């Protein structure tokens, strides 16, 4: 790869004003989000399927479409997680063909957040930051902590104080500074916006957000490549801020525009938990005015964002692509986790349960036709949210190390089943 960059400016998504590629994330005029602007004509000349296929199997094989100047220096091994065809789950959900994009095994911290952090911290280094930070519902904190540790950057992660134990430990172990905030994620987020303005830190999802968010596109690029250099007809994506959904949409559009995949119809659907569903609720009401949820209440804590930054854009992505939005109860989340585990052998965190449960509804209601094909985005590992399923998946039966006891147990089981 040459050292050239194909990324020229930041650009306001609302008014189109251009900004220098610094640690800034909003337009000074209308507070619209800043996004990376690329030289697509130049990229078209260098990025082909063959070039991509010749590169290592990581998210950086799409380097030209990611907003850093030089070579990546953090998270160079991230991405290219499996896209798995899951026939038994397809049958259980009543659809012809089903695939799982399995970011629960992303490297190094078992969630899709490694993608965004890899870009954000590579860029943070280019911009000269020595301290990096984030506002997080858990997965992002884990990834910032781990990737900062390996890169030798000092880090602070701010989280709601009531997160799952696995997510808290999964940050602490890396020696980061974990700050628990009393209150929901939205208050953590607001505090981080204020801190980012005051301290000279690189907040991956505040002042580095334009770089960070682009990392999510790689999930979409990988789906398109692994699906056979074409777009799946339906993609179901969990929504917290809505950013991942909008970036998968952007990834698909970029691949079409660059001629890397052919133009074909695709729909992107969003999934939320009923205890915090500002985006799906607005979508179902037919409006793009997202009403904030003041007190999110769901076991899907990683999705519990009451004031979703990209809710407005997520609604437009779903509308533009003919997708739908669904939400599900906590009971359905657990059911979704169990379905995915029992029928596909994949243990996802609560957000994965939300995705499966909502996909089931989208199929049942015909929003995703039964004779079609769909990809579900699974974004984090089940070991991180064990509390959600503890006591709901049975208990081991304990016996002595005796053949007699084992035979009695099996005999009992056979008797029950017959």
């Amino acid at each position: 790869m040459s050292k050239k960059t194909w990324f020229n400016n930041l650009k306001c998504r609302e008014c189109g004003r251009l900004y220098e590629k610094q640690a800034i994330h909003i337009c000074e005029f209308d507070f619209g989000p800043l996004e990376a602007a690329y030289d697509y004509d130049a990229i078209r000349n260098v990025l082909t399927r063959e070039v991509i296929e010749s590169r290592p199997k990581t998210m950086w094989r799409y380097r030209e479409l990611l907003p850093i100047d030089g070579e990546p220096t953090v998270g160079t091994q991230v991405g290219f997680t499996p896209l798995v065809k899951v026939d038994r789950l397809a049958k259980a959900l009543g659809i012809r063909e089903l695939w799982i994009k399995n970011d629960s095994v992303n490297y190094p911290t078992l969630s899709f957040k490694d993608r965004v952090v890899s870009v954000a911290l590579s860029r943070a280094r280019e911009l000269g930051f020595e301290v990096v930070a984030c506002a997080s519902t858990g997965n992002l904190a884990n990834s910032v902590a781990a990737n900062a540790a390996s890169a030798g950057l000092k880090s602070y992660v701010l989280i709601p104080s009531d997160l799952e134990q696995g997510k808290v430990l999964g940050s602490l172990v890396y020696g980061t500074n974990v700050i628990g905030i009393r209150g929901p994620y939205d208050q953590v987020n607001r505090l981080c916006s204020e801190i980012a303005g005051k301290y000279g830190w690189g907040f991956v999802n505040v002042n580095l957000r334009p770089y960070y968010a682009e990392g999510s596109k790689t999930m979409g690029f990988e789906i398109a490549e692994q699906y056979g250099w074409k777009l799946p007809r339906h993609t179901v994506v969990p929504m917290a801020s809505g950013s991942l959904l909008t970036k998968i949409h952007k990834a698909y559009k970029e691949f079409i525009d660059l001629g890397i995949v052919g133009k074909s119809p695709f729909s992107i659907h969003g999934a939320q938990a009923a205890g915090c569903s500002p985006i799906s609720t607005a979508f179902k009401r037919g409006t793009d005015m997202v009403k904030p949820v003041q007190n999110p209440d769901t076991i899907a804590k990683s999705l519990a964002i009451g004031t979703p930054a990209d809710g407005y854009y997520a609604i437009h992505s779903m509308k533009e692509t003919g997708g739908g939005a669904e939400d599900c109860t906590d009971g359905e989340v657990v059911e979704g986790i169990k379905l995915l585990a029992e029928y596909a052998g994949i243990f996802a965190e609560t957000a994965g349960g939300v995705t499966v449960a909502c996909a089931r509804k989208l199929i049942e209601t015909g929003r995703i036709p039964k004779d079609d094909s769909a990809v579900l985005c699974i974004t984090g590992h089940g070991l991180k949210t064990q509390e959600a399923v503890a006591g709901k998946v049975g208990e081991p039966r304990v016996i002595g190390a005796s053949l007699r006891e084992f035979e009695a147990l099996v005999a009992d089981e056979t008797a029950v089943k017959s």
Partner: protein
Amino acid sequence: MPSIRIPTPLRKLTNNEEVVTVSGVTVGAVLDELNKTYPGLGERILDEQGSIRRFVNVFLNDEDVRFLQEKETPVKETDEISIVPAIAGG
């Protein structure tokens, strides 16, 4: 007078002041007064129809004014209003 916390991107308009004070008995009145004192600030926060922009969150003390009475929310002398960009996190 109520105090108003200005976000970094708007401090060019307040001579780099992080916190300013202006009078007003509602959130809307405070924002109007803010615009008179610091010309240009109002149009950054309010759209052409005079509504709080889509990507701006205004907090009265620790409460988002969208959970209160939006621009009609009463403001006391000792209150603090924070203007915080909405695009963050997630």
